[in-house]
């Protein structure tokens, strides 16, 4: 059996506000509280949760930049405490905020990084050229990094993280601060990398991103694992079933009051002219709802169906919205 790409057991991290060692004190911040994760080689794995959930801390531990307070963690077989150099050799990291080496040009950023990993100049040049081409900045090789846009810098970070061909690629909220177009371009790059067989571990607090990209998702909040499954299975666990939204030509409250009693309708509510109902089975309830609205003297202007989403699951698991 292949070595797990990621394995953590009872992983714990406490940030000391009191400073120094000794026993934990009330003011200390528990960022991770016993996290168990397994990621298989070749998997596209997501850590989803709101800010402060412990995602970045988890990534920090797995990339040797944060020292765990307890438990164990290994990356492609290398222990994050006992073999930090071994871990670093196996990983590529794309930070939340691009941090290119501003003393160097775009190409030099890749070449020196490759040199840190012992790659000779000739193969490094070849790889750098190929990578810059694939992320769409092949013509900016000799530019200073400051001349790149935010999206281009973020893609340069991906190229840098890949040039030494790591076992596992880590990305921390890679699309925060990018415009929609740059975000789509980045998704495309990540999908291609995954198709090439690379193991990718990504944190995000965007539901859509997690849903579209990841094969499996760990939902974390306040340092604990709340759920772990494929996006489809997680969504199936979302309560309330399919959301049906009817936009009416006036106040929706009377229709909502009736809709609550319909068979197969779990919940119904009105928000001004919008009738929002959660149905056990999506399509079947639509005609009944339209009838109810018409009986209440309203015409249906628009119908919108939303399948069970991670958003609704997260709401049910934590009682809070993601953002």
């Amino acid at each position, binding site marked *: 059996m292949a070595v797990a790409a990621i394995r953590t057991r009872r992983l714990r991290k406490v*940030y000391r506000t009191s400073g120094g060692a000794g026993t934990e004190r009330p003011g200390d911040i528990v960022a991770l509280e016993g996290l168990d994760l397994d990621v298989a080689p070749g998997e596209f794995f997501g850590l989803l949760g709101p800010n402060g959930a412990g995602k970045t801390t988890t990534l*920090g531990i797995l*990339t*040797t*930049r*944060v*020292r765990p307070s307890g438990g164990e963690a290994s990356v492609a077989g290398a222990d994050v405490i006992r073999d*930090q*150099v*071994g871990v*670093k*050799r196996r*990983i590529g*990291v794309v*930070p939340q*905020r691009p*941090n*290119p*080496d*501003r*003393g*160097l040009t775009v190409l*030099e950023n890749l070449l*020196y*990084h490759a*040199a*840190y*990993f*012992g790659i000779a100049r000739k193969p490094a040049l070849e790889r750098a050229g190929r990578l810059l081409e694939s992320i769409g900045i092949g013509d900016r090789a000799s530019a200073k990094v400051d001349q790149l846009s935010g999206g281009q810098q973020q893609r340069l970070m991906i190229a*840098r993280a890949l040039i030494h061909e790591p076992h596992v690629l880590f990305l921390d909220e890679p699309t925060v601060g990018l415009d929609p177009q740059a975000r789509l371009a980045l998704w495309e790059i990540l999908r291609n990398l995954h198709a090439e067989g690379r193991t990718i571990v990504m944190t995000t607090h965007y539901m859509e991103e997690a849903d579209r990209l990841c094969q499996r998702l760990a939902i974390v909040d306040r340092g604990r694992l709340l759920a772990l499954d494929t996006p489809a299975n997680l969504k199936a666990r979302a309560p309330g079933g399919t959301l049906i939204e009817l936009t009416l030509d006036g106040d929706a409250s009377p229709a909502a009051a009736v809709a609550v009693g319909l068979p197969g309708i779990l919940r119904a509510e009105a928000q001004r002219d919008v009738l929002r109902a959660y149905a056990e089975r999506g399509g079947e309830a639509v005609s009944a709802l339209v009838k109810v609205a018409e009986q209440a003297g309203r015409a249906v202007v628009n119908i919108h169906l939303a399948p069970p989403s991670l958003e609704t699951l997260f709401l049910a698991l934590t009682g809070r919205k993601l953002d």
Partner: protein
Amino acid sequence: MGQLRVFAALLARDVRVARRELPFFLIRTAMQPILFVVVFGWVLPKMGFLQRGYGAALLPGILAISLALASVQAVALPMVVDFGWTREIEDRLLAPISIRLVALEKIVAGVLQGAIAAAFVLPIARLIMGPIDGLSLAHAGVILGVTLLGAAAFSGLGLLMGTGIKPEQVGMMFSVIVAPMIFFGCTYYPWQGLSVIPVMKYAVLVNPLVYVAEGMRAALTPTLPHMPLGYVLVALTALTLGFWVLGARTFEKRAIS
């Protein structure tokens, strides 16, 4: 072996960046010492305010300042900026090498820059000041030794200051630590001369710059009064080790949370 190669690559990166910035680096580190040399080594003696022999006391001190400032700044300033906001050093912290060696590489880069600054300032200062009584370049080995050891001590100090000081305190660092260090560093006067103020003579011994300046005197003007070279070497070695150990510790603290 593997770590050594990574170390060399890190150093190559710093050399690349330093080479690109060389003109600015030289202006930054040499401007103040050279201005000092012009006024105190040339103008004032010419006016007759200073004795002719003052140049011999001044030159080693000026070299010590250039060397020390270049080394401290080469390490401390990027460190403050990198850890403070740009996080640029992150890719080097993720290189397959222990964190302590990343810190050591920064020190080695600082030593190189300190040595370059000294090598740049020495001929210029000599040129401006004219012939200097007692100046001898015969002890090249001692000159090199004091230069490297002094630069090592001050690079270590740079690491300690750069990782221990917040970005908003950098201005304070120069006015509160560096400026007194220069003026009480036996740079503009020889240590033996302080015999007239005994309290000061022993108080300044806590200042690392004293040993670099006196070491330079022992190396460049060995016939003039100076602190015994043995004391200088012992003190600089001890300071270097102390700063390295403390600096590596604060570096690690900043690098890993």
